């Protein structure tokens, strides 16, 4: 089945690595964990095992962050991964679940319409009508299943879930039980159960977590890539994969433009130029790595279909403009200022400056 899948689950895609790690791991494991916290961290960050197996890095970022995340799950506190869009929150949560309990599918996708049933349990109404409330008529949700099986449940985009539904997690996280009043029973979480939630901290205000719920979480903020090199690397690799998926003809010599896009994004995001000499204003958009990837992909499509097959400044200029100028009034000034005070003066960026002026800054 996995062969046909467009995107296999983490535990399937990296089954070999997980097996090798579990085999090599002799450190103490928390109850029902497939491996020790140390091995989980190694699985995410990559490394080499004594038997020669190479573990590919799943997450490129500070070790500290992964350690805190894994440790949190080991202390039976729930984990909240925060970050701007495109910082691999979901990716990290999936791999954590896959490494710890070998199952990353106990997933609740949070939306504005997520009902309480999606988190706790629903009913098989045919059964319910025919036989009345019973365990057989109960349809357990992913969280309930994780509790019963001692696994890791995941909630995506927790801040999009309506507040009353969010709060149904409080009992689960503090009492580690889920009462089923209709049956007069409760489901008690088995050791090993825990929960990973992700949330976008750009639109925190959508449904801010109540402080009662927040208190149950340890929060880990996933940062944007710390160095230009890391980010260029991530963008280049993703762009290549995407380009192949979209059947774009390969475009050589794209590295320079990628570096340029990444530099522009980083400088605007950080509010300071890469050499640390000039401060610039930051626009309202997020300018995450994910957006840099889409700008470059768009530019590649332009270059491949309408250009001469080489990625040029003009191909990415329009994409950058669109990514930066989200608020037509304020962001336009920010962008113009950046163009005039930074791009204009930078040697070797003449073509880029001209291209940006052309697309109408």
């Amino acid at each position, binding site marked *: 089945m996995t062969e046909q899948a467009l995107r296999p689950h983490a535990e399937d895609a990296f089954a070999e690595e997980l097996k090798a790690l579990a085999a090599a791991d002799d450190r103490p494991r928390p109850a029902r964990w497939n491996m020790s916290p140390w091995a989980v961290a190694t699985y995410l960050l990559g490394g080499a095992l004594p038997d020669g197996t190479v573990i590919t890095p799943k997450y490129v970022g500070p070790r500290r962050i992964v350690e805190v995340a894994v440790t949190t799950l080991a202390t039976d506190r729930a984990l909240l991964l*925060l970050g701007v869009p495109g910082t691999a929150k979901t990716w990290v949560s999936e791999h954590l679940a896959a490494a710890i309990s070998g199952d990353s599918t106990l997933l609740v996708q949070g939306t504005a319409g997520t009902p309480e049933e999606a988190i706790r349990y629903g009913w098989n109404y045919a059964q319910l009508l025919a036989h009345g409330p019973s365990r057989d008529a109960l349809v357990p949700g992913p969280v309930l299943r994780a509790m019963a099986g001692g696994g890791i449940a995941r909630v995506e985009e927790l801040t999009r879930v309506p507040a009353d539904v969010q709060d149904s997690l409080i009992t689960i996280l503090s009492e580690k039980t889920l009462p089923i009043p209709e049956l007069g029973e409760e489901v008690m979480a088995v050791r090993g159960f825990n929960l990973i939630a992700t949330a976008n901290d750009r639109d925190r205000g959508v449904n801010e977590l109540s402080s009662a719920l927040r208190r149950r979480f340890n*929060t880990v903020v996933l940062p944007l890539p710390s160095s230009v090199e890391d980010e260029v690397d991530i963008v280049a690799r993703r762009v290549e994969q995407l380009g192949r998926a979209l059947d774009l003809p390969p475009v050589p010599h794209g590295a320079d433009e990628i570096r340029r896009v990444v530099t522009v994004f980083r400088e605007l995001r950080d509010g300071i130029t890469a050499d640390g000499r000039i*401060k610039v204003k930051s626009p309202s958009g997020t300018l995450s790595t994910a957006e840099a990837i889409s700008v470059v992909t768009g530019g590649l499509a332009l270059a491949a279909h309408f250009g001469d097959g080489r990625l040029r400044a003009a191909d990415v200029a329009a994409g950058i403009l669109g990514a930066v100028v989200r608020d037509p009034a304020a962001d336009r000034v920010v962008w113009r200022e950046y163009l005039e005070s930074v791009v204009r003066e930078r040697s070797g960026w003449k073509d880029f400056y001209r291209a940006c002026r052309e697309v109408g800054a």
Partner: protein
Amino acid sequence: MSTGTLPGPPRGSVAGDDAERLWLLGVRHHGPGSARAVRAALDSRRPDVVLIEGPPEADAVVGLAADPELRPPVALLAHAVGDPARAAFWPFARFSPEWVAIRWATDHGVPVRFIDLPAANSLALHAERDARQELAEADPAEADAEPAEADADPAGESVPPEEGAQRDTPEGGTPEAGAEFGVPEDGTPDIVPRTDGTPEDGTPEDGAPEAGAPEAGAPCAHTPQDAEDSAAVRVDPLAVLARAAGYDDPERWWEDAVEHRGREGDDPLAPFTALASAMEALRERYGDGGHRDDAIREAHMRLRLREAVKEFGRVAVVCGAWHVPALRADATVTADRRLLRGLPKVRAELTWVPWTHRRLARRSGYGAGIDSPGWYDHLFSAPDRVVPRWMTAVAGLLRAQDHPVSSAHVIEAVRLAETLAALRGRPLAGLGEAHDAVRAVMCDGSDVLPALIHDRLVVGEDLGTVPDSAPAVPLARDLVRTQRTLRLKPEAADRQLDLDLRSDNDAARSRLLHRLGLLGVEWGRPGEARQGTGTFRESWQLCWEPELSVRVAEAGVWGTTVESAATARARDAAETAAGLDGVTAIAERCLLADLPGALPTVMRVLADRAALDTDVSRLAGALPALVRSVRYGDVRGTDAGALREVAEGLATRICVGLPPACAGLGEDGAREMRGHLDGVHAAVALLAGAHEPLRGRWAGVLRSLAGRDATTPGLIRGRAARLLLDDARLETAEAARLMGLALSPGTAPREAAAWVEGFLSGGGMLLVHDERLLALVDGWLTGVPEEAFTDVLPLIRRTFAEFDSGVRRTVGELVRRGPSTAGGTVGGGGGEPGAAGFGAGLDPGRADAVLPTLRLLLGLPGAARDLEGDRA
């Protein structure tokens, strides 16, 4: 280990390793673990005298340590008499082993002796070193291995070389001033031998980015590069040990190996023995490890040690662990004496000054090299349960900031920290684990609160105190000295002082007064005469009020000389200034006070503020003052290059931001913006001399404003058109077209009147000379409907009231005469048609009459002849 016995035989080690007579307690400076161990060792061995690595001059003031008013963090400040700029500091925190030893001694009535090289020698040597730069560059024996140390310190570079002692040193190794208390063994030296006392804690952030800025006025003797170069050569013993233990971070190794251990005490001397043998191995391998000054310092220590052993018998020495092997080494008294012979000397004075945790921290650029004095203090003072106590303190701080933190948070944070330590394989949760746990549990992963915690707890805000009986601060002495050389006596009587800045003495006086002004010592107030006269004259009202002496004492925290203190104060003021204009004002004052050392910081703050300020009118408000500073800097000959760069950057930002900011303004807003438009226009003209593209860009802005539709207020559009016209960047015909558009019937009369006001204000000669424009105004005014006329009248009146009466009359006459025929005439009519508004053709007779005078004014040849011819 040594063989001989003390101290008699001329040959043999200083330290007969007599376990009952001499204890060498090698420590890591400012290490709480070391401090605790020192206390335990002293308690158990009870020596008759305590020797401490530090300048012997401090013996005289060490008695003050018994005074409850002397509360750490404090520092010993040594400065050269007559040259307070040459100073060195030895900071002590509550958790410093040296401080613990001093307190133990004073509490037990045991004498304390300092045994390091006297400050008199080290200050002189340091100055000499600075004077001989080539030596400094070749000689890696800079006191401390840290780039963040003295030499990388922005203000620490500046001993005027010519003031250095000129005698030769016995050999290459010239000890560094106050060289390290901060011994190399921890890689994070503590003492900051500074040659210039500018305590920086007021501006903790500016150390790092600033490093390398040469101190005001004084020739920069070392550059940070020197320090880095030499740091590269020198051995960091702690790093070597840490590497051997498989750690990549020396600090962390030290924490794990020493600070977090040693609570269980069987033999209080055991940690010292272990550390000493490690150091011994290192010194065997690396010799002096590149610390060439150490030979002299250690010779001196050995001599003092011998004396003490002879005098007292049972001796404990608290010194950097690095020195322990050297103190044990075989060395003859004569050899040591020979090393010390002929050292240069200055008269040095010592006093206690209050210190802060912030200054101890490495990031202040002036630190003892410890990142986390607050944490160390906690480690030292917490009797047990270090992490839970720490978390409770963090929770207390957060609660005080109205951030809800419950006991449950504290519990979870402690659990997380301890589990993290286990995951990372550390024996005990350290600051790193505590920090990560606090961030994840208490701070929702944000960076804001951890920054606060770092500031308040990890570094801490402890401020030491010093009793009044401590000797006076050097700043006051420097002021007295400067007053004497400038022949400017402090007098209580009010008097006026006129200065001609072209004379050196007067210029120096002006600088002194401006600097004192920056320090809040308002001795002189700028007088009245200053405005009208040229830029080379200044007038001051001088009056020395008694309370100014108090102000000087207060300003002592900023530095040891007026210049360094004013520099530090200006930097701090810039960092904390409220608005952009505040920073520009400080920039102006820095130029007046000639504080180039402060300028880089001020400029950086200015550029940052300007970049982040979204309010164009604030930017526009700041530009004129800045450009004035640029010009004034030029006049004074100070280097205003950086200032110019910032001003041009500011102008660029204004060019970008101004057009959108002009849209949709109300009447008051438009009026304010018009003022900015004029101000920026003048500033750009002044600035653009060397920067033609800027002028072009500004003209582009004006042109786009002038050509806007009615969303931009008429006042602005009219003004923009006028400014362009005055600069000859707009054809008169085009101006007429714009006016025609603005005054066409479709425009609301009020709006049109505002346009006219913008266009005409500041001079109506235009109307006199260009009848076409006059005709347009006239035609529009007569066409204004009656009901709108009363609305428009005040605006028109205001506009015309500004004109000279002559212009007003001429305009009136022209209007009364009515529109002239054939393009209008002012002068007599000739054959050919003239420019619009002017008479046809030239009147050669009248033109010639002007030429001779013009020639004379321009200094062209033949001027005199012309004039004579004229007379003839």
